[in-house]
Every structure is written in structure tokens, then in C-alpha cells.
């Protein structure tokens, strides 16, 4: 489904990814974890086409998509829930959801109402806020909207950057359950970055630990869960070593 090889990405002068490879099978849930600044968001952004890699390649469903723009990738079935939600602040909740289906609006206009209904069932909170400007929603509500909007694209591969961020515990449980359901019912493939490692490893099949732009550990969830370094890693914080070479001297 998705194959990433030797990906290098710069964010400004910072070498954020230093040769990352991932392999995702269809219908799999794959978790990426790692400390702040490990490059997780950069990895997802590079796959989704937001950042251009300096080196390395990405294949999606057998075709190479390295450097393809996000607006193209979503047409091929790849949807991203970005870091910081990025909802359309001035538009209503409903319009945000509708625009999630932008690329299939012309062909599948009839099904949109149904899909919105599904999302409102998953997030009842959004139903109460349906006409409100997205920018005035609470943080958690915006997070729900960002996830809902990505689902509206009916993707084959859903890429989530910290979907649990700002959600209440009950909501997290429900959302992650829904992911599992969707994988079952629609064969949705999910690539997930999470800080809520327990929740993530709870639903994932496989995963990897990213540190300082490199893959530290990779394997099945059971392997990861029992890996001594994972336990250790998430008890302490890592100092940043990938600091800008152009930064302060001295």
C-alpha cells in the first residue's frame, strides 16, 4: 500500500528526517511514536506531499508519488489529519466537512449527506455545533472536525498526526474503536503518529519508534510493547541533538 525508502527531509536548515523507511500493507494500522522533535510530523507531512524530500522515494499503491502535491494525493486516496488541526476557521462545521469531500464532490454529491451523518454519529458534539464557525470551536471539537474532515475524503490510507490530541478520554476510546471498525468494514489503512502510546499500541498492528530523524526500533506491536528500550524511552525525555547547525555557537 505505502512504501517509503530512505527518506531525507530538511525543515529549513534542520535535517529532520535522515533516511526513514516504512512499509505498510493494505488494511494495516501502523503507529509511529517518538519524542518531541523526532521528526514524526515531518515524516507524515513528507508522505502527504506537504514537504519535499531531499532524497528518498515514496510509493503509494505501487506507483511512485515522491514529491506529488497533496491535492493530487488526496485524489488517489490518501487523507491527512495534520498537526494543529488546520480547520477552515471562518467556515461552518458543516462546510468544513463538506469540503473534506472536495475531490469527489462532482461525482458523488448524493453520498455526502450520508457521510456527514456518519461523522456526526461518531462525534455527537459536532452535531450540536453544526452551524458554528469552526474557529470558535473548543480545541477538542476542532480536533474532531479535523478527523471528520479527513474521513469525508473516503480515503484508502488515512494519515493521522496525533488524533487524540486534546480529546477527552472517553472520546479517545470511542474514536480509536471507530478506527478499528473502519479498518474492518472498509479495509481502511491507517498510519498514525501518537503520543498517547498506550492508545496507539492498543489498536496498531505494527509500529516504529522514531528518534532524531531515524528509525530506532521497528516491529509488531507485541515486539514493541515488550522492547526494553520502548519502556525506557518513554520514561525519560531525550535532549535534542538535531539542533540547527546554524544556531547559536559557543
Amino acid at each position, binding site marked *: 500500500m505505502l512504501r517509503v525508502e530512505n527518506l531525507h527531509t530538511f525543515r529549513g536548515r534542520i535535517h529532520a528526517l535522515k533516511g526513514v523507511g516504512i512499509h505498510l500493507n493494505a488494511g494495516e494500522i501502523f503507529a509511529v511514536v517518538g519524542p518531541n522533535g523526532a521528526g514524526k510530523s515531518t515524516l507524515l507531512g513528507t508522505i502527504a506531499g506537504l514537504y519535499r524530500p531531499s532524497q528518498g522515494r515514496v510509493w503509494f499503491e505501487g506507483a511512485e508519488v515522491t514529491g506529488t*502535491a*497533496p491535492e493530487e494525493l*488526496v*485524489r488517489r486516496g490518501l487523507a491527512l489529519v*495534520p498537526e494543529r488541526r488546520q480547520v477552515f476557521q471562518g467556515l461552518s462545521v458543516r462546510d468544513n466537512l463538506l469540503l473534506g469531500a472536495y475531490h469527489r464532490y462532482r461525482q458523488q454529491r448524493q453520498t455526502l449527506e450520508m457521510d456527514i451523518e456518519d461523522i456526526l454519529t461518531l462525534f455527537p458534539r459536532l452535531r450540536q455545533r453544526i452551524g458554528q*464557525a469552526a474557529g*470558535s470551536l473548543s480545541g477538542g471539537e476542532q480536533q474532531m472536525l479535523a478527523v471528520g474532515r479527513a474521513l469525508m475524503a473516503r480515503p484508502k490510507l488515512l494519515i493521522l498526526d496525533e488524533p487524540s490530541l486534546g480529546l477527552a478520554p472517553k472520546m479517545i476510546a470511542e474514536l480509536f474503536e471507530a478506527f478499528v471498525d473502519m479498518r474492518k468494514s472498509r479495509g481502511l489503512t491507517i498510519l498514525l503518529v501518537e503520543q498517547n502510546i498506550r492508545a496507539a499500541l492498543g489498536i496498531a498492528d505494527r509500529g516504529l519508534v522514531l528518534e532524531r530523524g531515524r528509525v530506532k526500533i521497528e516491529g509488531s506491536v507485541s515486539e514493541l510493547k515488550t522492547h526494553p528500550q520502548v519502556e525506557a524511552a518513554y520514561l525519560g525525555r531525550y535532549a535534542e541533538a538535531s539542533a540547527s547547525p546554524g544556531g547559536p555557537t559557543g
Partner: protein
Amino acid sequence: MSGASLLQLFFSGLTIGSIYALIAVGFVVTFSVTGILNLAQGEFAAVGALTAASLHMHGAALWVSVLAGTAAAVLLGIVMERAVIRPARRIDLLSVVIITIGVDIVFRGAALMIWGADPLTLAPFTDRPPLHLGGATLDWQTVWTVAISGVFFVALIWFFRTYRGKAVRAAVMNHTAARIVGIRPSRLSFYAFAVSAGLGGLAGTIVAPITGATYDMGLMLGLKAFVAAVIGGLNNAPAAVLGGLLVGLLEAFTAGLISSDYRDAITFIVLLLMLFVRPSGLFGRTAGKRV
């Protein structure tokens, strides 16, 4: 002042207001799609007017001249988008505004070189004596101007309610988010410049019979239209039409009733007072932002 005089002032305000409105709409179209305040907007009007007028003076039929004027502006809009706006995509909006001022200077210089400094004239669209209504006279060209801005008013209300219209608004609210849902902002930007340049060009050809066509006509029109667009609330194209009319009417009534010397000052004071009462434009809504 008599009723007829007041009506006359009203017509005058309507004429000038719809001219502002047409150009203001062009401002709003590019702004609400790309977030860029294109200060070269007024020049599209100048180019449209000059092209149409010079063709017409060389014997082309009126409608051909008007179409050609509009087309010339569209072409220029497209060239500007490709050559300048697209490369400037990643840079600070304030710098882009200054870049558009640079483009404005280039357009104006080029127009001066091509058409010279003297005003050109274009025949009125309907060559008939003015209408007489309630003791006041109404020029046919005014009827055209008002009608065309009316058409745009309705069309824009309609467009921004459609799904595409919302996508267009979304694109400027959040570029990244727009791309990840599949909106192609660069394509929108292209169309936006083509359309707003066309609007400006058309506006120029409509104005030309009233005011003549000069290479520097875009400057003042652009500034006034900018004011109209802002008063309407920049993001709201139909409101820009209303903003244009408001500015035009204010100018006419101030000049006619209070003082022509201080007309612009008084107009501005009234507009500013309105802004102070409604800081996000007369018809603008505060963007749904909070902390």
C-alpha cells in the same frame, strides 16, 4: 435643495459608485481567493479602457472594442499571475502587496509608452440623449454601469453560496488545509486573477465613455475601489458592490450638499466613523478566531 436636485445627486452617486463597485469586486475576487491585495487592480481598468478606446478610434466596432479591452485585461491578469504572483506564493503577504505596487508602476509606465498621456475617448454604449426622471437626468452609460454591477452583485452572491464558492473561501483561510482536501489553490489563483482582471477591464471600458481613458486613470480608481472593498469587508464580494455604491453616494451627497472642497475628507470621516463602529467592515463578520 429641491427634490430633483437630490435625485440628481443620487444618480450621480450611483454612477460613480457603480464604477467603484466594479473595480472593488475585482479586488475582492483576488483577495478572497489568494489573500493577496492586488494594488495593480486599478490598472486593469486602465488597460481595458485604453485598449477599447484606441481600437474604437481606429474603427473597430464598439462591442468588438469592449470585448478586446476586457480580453486584454484578462491576458494581463494571467501574465501577472504567472510571472509574478506565482513565484511570490511563498513570501510574506506584505511584500506581495508591495510587489503588486511594482507591477502597477510597470503597467502604468507601459500604458504611458503605448498610449501616451492624452485621454482617449470611447463612444457610449447607447448613444441616446440622457433619460429624464423626476426632473433629473440620467445618462445611459450610468444605466449600463448600474446594470452590470447589479449583475455582478447577484452573480457573486450566488457564487459564494455554491460549493465551489466555499472552496474558494476555504483556500484563502488555510492554504495547507485546502491542499490536503484536494483544492488546488494555484489553479484558483490563476482563475481569480483572470476573472478579476476581466472585471477590471470591463469596468474600464464602461467608464471610458464617461471619463475618457487615460494611462493613469487606474490609480485613483484603484484607491477608491480599495476603500469601497474594505468598507464592504474585503472577503465579501457582494458587499464590495454595496461598499462601492456607498462610497459613490457619500461623495455625491457631500459634494452636493456640504462642500466640494472637503468632499473626500468628509467622505472619509464618515467611512472611518462607520469602521470604528463596525471594525470588521460594514458587512464583514469577525472571523471565527479565538484563543
